[in-house]
């Protein structure tokens, strides 16, 4: 593995990390805009969506640079493995581990979006929820690891990003658009257990045309409890 040590790598790492943090905050906020159906008058909804998609690519490029420069810089011994697998770095073990977790989550979201046409919509949605975890972990990682995040401008930036992500999250979860009532899936979990069958039950109901039935048109139709799970 290439290992160089020069302060410029460290500077690049710090700078790209910061930019990536800002960009991911923006991406998540824009994603909330899309999900909450914002836009349509001044800015089109599709434009927000396009911005969300393109900015995410830019953010991933910056994230890649951030990781690459950190790995290449031999001043701190953070190997390539540490970028993916948490708790493998000897330097700042826990904070770097958080960064690795965030990277993995963001990677999962990105890959699932690339495969969006191939995978089930529910799977994609489920994986996309990870972006909240990813961005939260990355903010914590930035605060704990960042050389600039403890004071002055850096601290303000981290604070603003955290504020933006928290408010976006609250808005996303509290103010989600009204969908009819979720889908009334009859999943095995939601459905009532099958009634125990009594083999001694005597048959009832009409046998022959014209012969009136003893029972009504629908003897019993208890409805299964409805699934309230939103999907």
């Amino acid at each position, binding site marked *: 593995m290439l290992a160089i040590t020069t302060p410029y790598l460290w500077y690049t790492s710090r700078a790209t990390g910061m930019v990536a943090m800002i960009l991911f905050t923006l991406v998540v906020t824009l994603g909330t805009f899309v999900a909450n159906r914002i836009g349509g008058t001044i800015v089109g909804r599709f434009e927000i969506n396009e911005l969300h998609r393109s900015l995410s690519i830019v953010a991933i490029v910056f994230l890649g640079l951030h990781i690459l420069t950190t790995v290449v810089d031999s001043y701190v011994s953070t190997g390539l493995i540490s970028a993916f697998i948490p708790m493998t770095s000897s330097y700042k073990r826990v904070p770097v581990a958080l960064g690795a977790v965030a990277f993995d989550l963001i990677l999962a979201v990105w890959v699932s979006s690339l495969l969006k046409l191939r995978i089930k919509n529910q799977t994609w949605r489920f994986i996309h929820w990870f972006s909240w975890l990813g961005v939260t972990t990355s903010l914590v990682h930035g605060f704990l690891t960042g050389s600039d995040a403890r004071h002055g401008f850096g601290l303000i930036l981290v604070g603003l990003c955290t504020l933006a992500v928290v408010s976006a999250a609250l808005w996303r979860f509290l103010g989600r658009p009204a969908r009819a009532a979720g889908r009334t*899936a*009859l999943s095995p979990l939601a459905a009532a257990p099958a009634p125990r*069958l009594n083999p001694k039950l005597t048959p009832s109901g009409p046998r*022959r*045309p014209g012969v009136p039935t003893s029972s*009504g048109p*629908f003897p019993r*139709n208890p409805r299964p409890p409805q699934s309230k799970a939103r999907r």
Partner: protein
Amino acid sequence: MIDATALPRLLHGPSGRPLTLEQHEALFVSQTPAQSIAAELQASGLTGRGGAAFPTWRKAEFIAGQRGHNKFMVVNAMEGEPGSHKDRTLLSANPHLVLDGAEILASLIGAKHIAICVARDNPTVVNHLKRAVHERERRSLRGPKLELHTPPWRYVAGEESALVHWLDDNESLPQYRAHRPHVLRISHNPAMVDNTETCANVGLIARFGADWFRKLGTAESPGTALVSLTGAVANQAVVEVPLGTPISTILARANADPRPQALLLGGYGGSWISGQHVDTPYANEFLRPLGATVGAGIMVVLPRSACGLVETQRIVQWMANESARQCGPCAFGLPSLAEDLTHLVRTTRDAEAVLRRLHERCGLIEGRGACHHPDGVVQLVRSALKVFADDLRQHMSGAPCAPSRSNQHVVKVPTLEHEEEQMWE
């Protein structure tokens, strides 16, 4: 052999308990048909009895032409329609006839599995079927495997794609079909879904042949049909009649109101026809000009003492609640239809505007769901607005008819048991 013109055909046999396999075989003595069974089926012109009236032989031929080693034959006995009780009647009278037909269809398409689907809320029928399947399993080990499935009851759970979805993935939700004809699949294997009554008819055709089958019914709609009557009927009944029998005869056989105000045909997603058409023959080719079809063999008799608009409103409200809420136009559209109808029935304020909006919304919703659930409701609303036009004018002018003010209702609508389901009140 049963006499070709004798009735009943499908419900033939002594009343009481469902026929055992021995009784069934003694009663329906098998005859070797003149041609192959596929040819007999084609010659018989049997159409599906579940509602769509699609030629059964064509469906079988289509599925037979599909690749797949583990095809499924699905018998749909879900009876999602609250007004229907023909499937449980048939299965309580002679389950083996249905299973015969299912086995024949399975052999035609090359299916390895037969899945019989009954709503689990119907323990009596489930027990009859269990016994019948058990009797058959003791008889032989060859042939396709019989499986009994009991999905929960819901209106849309009986829709064929929802049923296949249940068998495939335990979710009773209709599926989107981009192209038609579309092959429904259970774990990648093609599945054919046929109604109980269709299967029983196939069982008869395979025994006695197409000529025998065509002795009753009209040239276009041969055979007999089971009609479930509810509403102004002395006792709710299922009658078996040859297709093409005048509706008045059917009413007479069921001891129903001979001069009804209107009739709901086809199901809760069917059409109202005026009571003056009571002499129309009961077959699709005669009912289509009136905008109705035989559908799933449901006939709701509306007496003159009832208000058709109020009944329609109740049905639409219930149907809106039965939507699977998968598609926006259905999930949002049907409740708004119900709302508009309630408005029209109860108040006169802005009645003209609401009526116009109702017509508009009907046009908007039609054909935009994954299944035909919304289309059926639109058809019901449209036919109600046409058939009960006079009542509607009265309601809109502020003089609603007397029955609409009482709480006595004719059409059976399952009660909404759960609070949270009445979200559109």
